[in-house]
């Protein structure tokens, strides 16, 4: 046990980073045991969390006839890549069509949300106009309403009033903006230094140019995080497509995959798993490329729930 006072003179040599501070705490006798328990816990959880994903991959590469066989693989032992081709080229289902539907809807929704939320966020954060604070409060209040309440009336509105049943517009239109995104962008733009906006005004820039050339570039990291989450939320959405879409050629990916299981019959699990693997690719790519943005995104968009 070290004298509790001695660490003080040592402080200047060790920079106060989160990692160095751990070592200045006293090490009790059980310290190494505790450390071991923690690492084992973290590893077990990692195996539980990732095991099913690697099972999907390993099984998707088995011969379809073996796909039900035990013991399970968590690492590929066979390489029947033709399962992937079989799903993609299947003449019973238009697999690429589902992929395209989901991609199209998620892209449109993402671009639309980035535009509408950043525009409104700019106005709420940087412009003055009568009723601004009241309108902003209205946006905030709408965040509190759970989706459950609007589920039934929205269905009636979209299907009965707008006649959009079985149309992708039924998924796109309600998702053109998000109150949360507006809130997030307002906070972001409030933090941009005043000098920048004043200088631009002096140069005779209109509001649209200020928004487009000064504000948006400043908000790029937040916009990226918002884009990732909006895209994935749309890509992963299941309930809305289940409600609105009726015909196979309109189906989105998640909807198609769940139905694929029944449709392809029980003998073709490897094919269903190949389809699932393909459905995971956008998340996988986004995750590998932008983990930094995602971690940041959850920290700032935590409210999204």
């Amino acid at each position, binding site marked *: 046990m070290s004298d*509790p006072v001695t*660490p003080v003179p040592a402080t200047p040599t060790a920079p*106060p980073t989160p*990692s160095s*501070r751990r*070592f*200045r*705490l*006293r090490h009790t006798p059980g*310290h190494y045991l*505790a450390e071991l328990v923690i*690492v084992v816990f*973290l590893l077990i959880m*990692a195996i539980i*969390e*990732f095991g*099913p*994903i690697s*099972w999907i991959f390993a099984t998707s590469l088995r011969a379809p006839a073996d796909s039900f066989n*035990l*013991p399970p693989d968590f690492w590929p032992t066979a390489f029947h890549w033709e399962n992937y081709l079989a799903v993609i080229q299947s003449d019973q289902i238009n697999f690429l069509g589902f992929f395209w539907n989901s991609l199209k809807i998620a892209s449109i929704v993402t671009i639309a949300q980035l535009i*509408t939320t950043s525009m409104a966020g*700019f106005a709420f954060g940087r*412009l*003055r*106009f009568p009723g601004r604070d009241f309108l902003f409060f209205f946006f905030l209040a709408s965040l509190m*309403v*759970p989706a*459950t*309440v*609007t589920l*039934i*009336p929205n*269905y*009636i*509105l979209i299907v*009965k009033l707008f006649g959009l049943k079985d149309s992708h517009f039924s998924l796109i*239109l*309600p998702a*053109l*903006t998000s*109150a949360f995104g507006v809130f997030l962008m307002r906070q972001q733009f409030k933090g941009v230094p005043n000098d920048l906006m004043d200088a631009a005004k002096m140069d005779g820039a209109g509001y*649209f140019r200020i928004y487009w050339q000064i504000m948006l570039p400043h908000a790029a990291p937040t916009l990226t995080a918002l884009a990732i989450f909006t895209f*994935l939320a749309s890509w*992963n959405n*299941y309930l809305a497509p289940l*409600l609105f879409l009726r015909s196979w050629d309109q189906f989105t*990916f*998640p909807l198609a*995959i*769940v139905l694929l299981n029944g449709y392809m019959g029980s003998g073709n699990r490897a094919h*269903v798993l190949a389809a*699932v693997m393909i459905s*995971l690719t956008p*998340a996988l790519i*986004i*995750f590998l490329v932008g*983990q930094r943005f995602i*971690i940041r995104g959850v920290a700032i968009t935590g409210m999204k*729930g």
Partner: protein
Amino acid sequence: MIAGYLFIGPAFLTLVIFLVLPILAAFWLVFMDYDLLSPPKAAGLRNIQDLLSDTRLLDIYKNTAIFVVAATVLNNVIAILLALGVNRAFHPVFKYILRTAYFFPVLTTTASLALIWKFLLTQDRGVVNFLLQQINLPAVPWLSSSQWAMVSVVMFDVWRACGYLMVIYLAGLQTIPDVYYEAAAIDGATRLQSMRFITLPLLTPTTFFAVVISIIGAAQVFDNAWVLTGGGPNDASRLIMLYIYEIGFSRFAMGYAAAVSMTLFALLLLVTFLQFYLSRRWVHYE
């Protein structure tokens, strides 16, 4: 001055059409009979009376309460443990791998993952039962028995969502200033002591936030139970959202579905208010 209105215009219009109007319509629908085919008819208070005589509703709310409590507690406890574990002086590569493993299920389609777990949890040739039998434990009827169906739905939810909360807790941990730990080290505190008297109290604002959003999210879970068990066997794992879906889209009783969703809204409001009220007793703001 007009510019402000133009900038908020698109967002505002979308919000009014797809959020404000539907909310107003929901209140109106509670007093209507509407089956989507014939025009809505005034129903007076019948939908509200139906709520009181609906015996399934009570059981389904019981299920939902069990699910919400179990999922919220497990998700948050595991997420805090994971965040405390990951937020250490590990090698960056090891950290990256851990974070990836925990967080990946969050990003992927819940419906697809629920389908995978349906395969894994099959009673006869399921992977989970196979692994259980390897260590001499009996096979479990995960999805087909009414005792286990809810356990499976909760397990799946924790598996899928705890990584999300972990990242929120990680962000919370990083806001705790180092000076507190340094002061504690100088006073000779053990790691357990600094955990108990610094980390956990200063993490309470994050914990409060995470618990509030967990409850609101869990109360409205649909995909999990829908794909995994379909709410069955019978109503054993039927959650309130599945019931609203059933009333609205297989019975086409839109008025009654709106009435049931209003009860959920009211309960969520009540629970959230209660949490804010109670938070004064346990949440420490700096």
